[in-house]
C-alpha cells in the first residue's frame, strides 16, 4: 500500500503550524518555507499523477481500517489531476503574493495559505463523504482568514457575508449527510454507489431529498445561479492573490458534483432519474448569461473578473449537466483553463491597483507599468472570453461539440455564443477605458493623492503572471493530449467498477466482521 497519497495533506498540515510557531516574526523564513512546501507538493502531485496516469487507482486506508468502516483516501486520474492543478496554481499565486508584498500586509498569510492547500487537496483526495465535509470546513476556515487578510472595513463586511453564506452551506451539507446515512447506513463513496443502486423504487423519498440537498451544497460552492450571490463581493474584496487562489475553490464544488453525480447517483439510476435534468442545465445557462452581463456592467476591474468567474462556472456546469463522457471531458478541460485564466485576471487587476491606487473602470492618468499590464490584461481577457488562439476558445468549442446531442442544444449554443460575445464587449470596454483613454487625460500632479500609493509592480509579480500565462499557452498547445486525458477520466467515471472494487474489496482490518449491520 502506498503511503504517498496522504503526504499532500500531511505536508501542508505540518508546514502551517511550523510557520506559525517557529517563524512567526520572520517574514523571510516564512516565505522560504512556504515556497519550499509548495515545491515539494508539486513534486508529490506530479509523482501521483504520473503513477495513476495509466488508469490505476491508488488508495490509502487510515489506520488500516477496511473501506466502508474506516476513512479512505483515493487517488484516481481525476483527483490527482485536480491536485496537480491546485499546487501549480498555488506556486504562482504564492510567488505573486511575495512579489507584491501582499503577504506582509497582515499576519499569518503563509500559515493560512498552507492550511488552505491542505483543505483543497484533502477534498480532492478523500473517498468518504463525511471526510469531504471535514476538508470543506478546513479549506473554508482557512479561506475566512485569507479573505480578511490585511483587514479594512469593506473586506470585513464582505467577509461576514462570505462566512455566513458558507456556514449555511455547511449546515445544509450536514443535513444532506444525515439523510444519506439514515437511508443507506454508509458514507463511503464507493459503498454508497453500490447501496444506492439497491434501493427499491418505493423507498426513494429520503435519498432523493438527500441527492438534491447535496447538489445545492455543491452548487453554493460552485456559485451556480441562483446561489452565486456570495461570489462577486467576496472575490472582489479579497486580496488579489487570495482571489486568484479562490479560483480553484469554485472548482472544488464542480469536482464534487462530477464525483458524486457520476459515482453515487449516476444519470441512468432509476432512484434519482429526472431529478436534475429539468433544472440543472437551465440554471447553468442562466449563470453563464449572468456572468457575461456582469462583465459588461461592472464598474470595477475586480468585480468584472469576479463576474467572469461566475460566467466560466456556468460554462463548466453546462458541460457537466450533459452527464455524458464527452461533456465531462470538455468540462474538465475547461476547468483547467478557467482556473488559470481567472487567476491571471485577478492578479492583473491587482497590478492595475498597484499602478494607480484603485481599480475603477474610468479614464485616469497613465499608470506605472501600463505597457506590460495592458498586454497581460489583453492576453487574459482573450483567454477568459474564449477567443482564438487560446485554450478558452478550444474549451468552448469542445463544450459546444459535446452538447450537439442534448435536448436543449439550441439554447446551449445560443447562450454560449451570445454570452461570449457580450463578455468580449465587456472586456474590450474595460480594457480600452483603463488603458487607452488614460493617455487622453492630463495628469493633475498637484491634487492627485493616488500619486503616493502608485508604484510600479515588481519583477516577481510579472514572473508569476507570466508563468500562469505560459501554462495557458501550454494548455492550448497540448490541447489534444490534455483533452484525450480528460476524456479518459470521464470514461472512468462512468465505469467506476475498478474504483469500487479496489476501494471495497481489498482486505483490511475488520474486513470480515463477525456480525455486521
Amino acid at each position, binding site marked *: 500500500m502506498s503511503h504517498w497519497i496522504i503526504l499532500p495533506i500531511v505536508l501542508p498540515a505540518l508546514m502551517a503550524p511550523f510557520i506559525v510557531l517557529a517563524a512567526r516574526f520572520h517574514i523571510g523564513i516564512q516565505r522560504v518555507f512556504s515556497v519550499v512546501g509548495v515545491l515539494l507538493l508539486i513534486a508529490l502531485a506530479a509523482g501521483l499523477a504520473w503513477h495513476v496516469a495509466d488508469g490505476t487507482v491508488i488508495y490509502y486506508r487510515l489506520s488500516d481500517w477496511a473501506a466502508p468502516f474506516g476513512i479512505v483516501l483515493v487517488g484516481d486520474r481525476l483527483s490527482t489531476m485536480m491536485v496537480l492543478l491546485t499546487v501549480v496554481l498555488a506556486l504562482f499565486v504564492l510567488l505573486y503574493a511575495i512579489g507584491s508584498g501582499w503577504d506582509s500586509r497582515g499576519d499569518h498569510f503563509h500559515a493560512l495559505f498552507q492550511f488552505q492547500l491542505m483543505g483543497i487537496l484533502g477534498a480532492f483526495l478523500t473517498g468518504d463523504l*463525511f471526510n469531504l465535509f471535514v476538508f470543506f470546513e478546513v479549506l473554508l*476556515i482557512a479561506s475566512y482568514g485569507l479573505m480578511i487578510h490585511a483587514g479594512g472595513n*469593506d473586506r470585513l463586511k464582505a467577509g461576514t457575508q462570505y462566512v*455566513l453564506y458558507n*456556514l449555511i452551506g*455547511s449546515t445544509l451539507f450536514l443535513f444532506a449527510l444525515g439523510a444519506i*446515512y439514515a437511508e443507506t447506513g454508509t458514507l463511503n463513496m464507493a459503498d454508497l454507489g453500490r447501496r444506492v443502486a439497491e434501493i427499491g423504487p418505493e423507498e426513494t423519498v429520503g435519498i432523493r431529498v438527500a441527492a438534491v440537498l447535496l447538489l445545492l451544497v455543491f452548487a453554493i460552492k460552485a456559485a451556480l445561479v441562483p446561489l452565486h450571490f456570495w461570489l462577486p*463581493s467576496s472575490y472582489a474584496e479579497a486580496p488579489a492573490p487570495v482571489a486568484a487562489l479562490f479560483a480553484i475553490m469554485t472548482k472544488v464544488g464542480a469536482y464534487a458534483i462530477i464525483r458524486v453525480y457520476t459515482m453515487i447517483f449516476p444519470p441512468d439510476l432509476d432512484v434519482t432519474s429526472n431529478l436534475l435534468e429539468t433544472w440543472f442545465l437551465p440554471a447553468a445557462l442562466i449563470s453563464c448569461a449572468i456572468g457575461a452581463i456582469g462583465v459588461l456592467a461592472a464598474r470595477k476591474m475586480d468585480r468584472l473578473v469576479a463576474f467572469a468567474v461566475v460566467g466560466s462556472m456556468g460554462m463548466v456546469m453546462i458541460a457537466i449537466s450533459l452527464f455524458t463522457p464527452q461533456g465531462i471531458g470538455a468540462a474538465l478541460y475547461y476547468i483547467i483553463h478557467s482556473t488559470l485564466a481567472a487567476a491571471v485576471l485577478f492578479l492583473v487587476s491587482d497590478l492595475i491597483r498597484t499602478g494607480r491606487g484603485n481599480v475603477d473602470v474610468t479614464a485616469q492618468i497613465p499608470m506605472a507599468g501600463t505597457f506590460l499590464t495592458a498586454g497581460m490584461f489583453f492576453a487574459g481577457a482573450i483567454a477568459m472570453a474564449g477567443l482564438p488562439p487560446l485554450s478558452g476558445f478550444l474549451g468552448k468549442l469542445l463544450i459546444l461539440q459535446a452538447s450537439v446531442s442534448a435536448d436543449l442544444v439550441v439554447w446551449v449554443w445560443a447562450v454560449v455564443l451570445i454570452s461570449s460575445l457580450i463578455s468580449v464587449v465587456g472586456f474590450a470596454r474595460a480594457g480600452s477605458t483603463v488603458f487607452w483613454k488614460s493617455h487622453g487625460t492630463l495628469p493633475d500632479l498637484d491634487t492627485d493623492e493616488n500619486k503616493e500609493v502608485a508604484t510600479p509592480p515588481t519583477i516577481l509579480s510579472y514572473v508569476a503572471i507570466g508563468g500562469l500565462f505560459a501554462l495557458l499557452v501550454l494548455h492550448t498547445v497540448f490541447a489534444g493530449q490534455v483533452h484525450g486525458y480528460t476524456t479518459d477520466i470521464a470514461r472512468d467515471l462512468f465505469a467506476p467498477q475498478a474504483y469500487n472494487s479496489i476501494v471495497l474489496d481489498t482486505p483490511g482490518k475488520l474486513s470480515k466482521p463477525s456480525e455486521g449491520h
Partner: protein
Amino acid sequence: MEVLVASAIGVLTAAGIYLVLRLRTFPVILGMSLLTYAVNVFLFASGRLTIGAPPILRDGVTTYTDPLPQALVLTAIVISFGMTAVVVMIGLGAFLGSDDDHVDDQPQGADAEQQS
C-alpha cells in the same frame, strides 16, 4: 419519541431560518446556532433512535445503538463551535469598523461604484 424528536428538529430549523432571514449580525448568528443544534440532533437521529443500548458491538450484545452518528455529531459540534467563534469575531470587526450590523449591505466599494 420519534414525533417529539422530529418536531423538535423542525421547530429549531424554522426558528433558525427565521432568525437568519433577519439579516442583522446578532440574530443571524443566533439563527445559525439554532440551525446547527437542529442539524446535530438530526445527525444523531440518523442512526435510528434507541434507548438504553450501548454503542458498542461485542459478543453477547443483541441490541445496540449505531456509534457512527455519535462520532459524526462530535465532529460537527466541534466544527460548528469553531465556525461560530470565527463569525462572531469577523462580524464584530465589521460592526465596529463601519458602525452597521446589516449583513445584506453591499460593501463600501460597491456604493462608491454606484456614485461614480
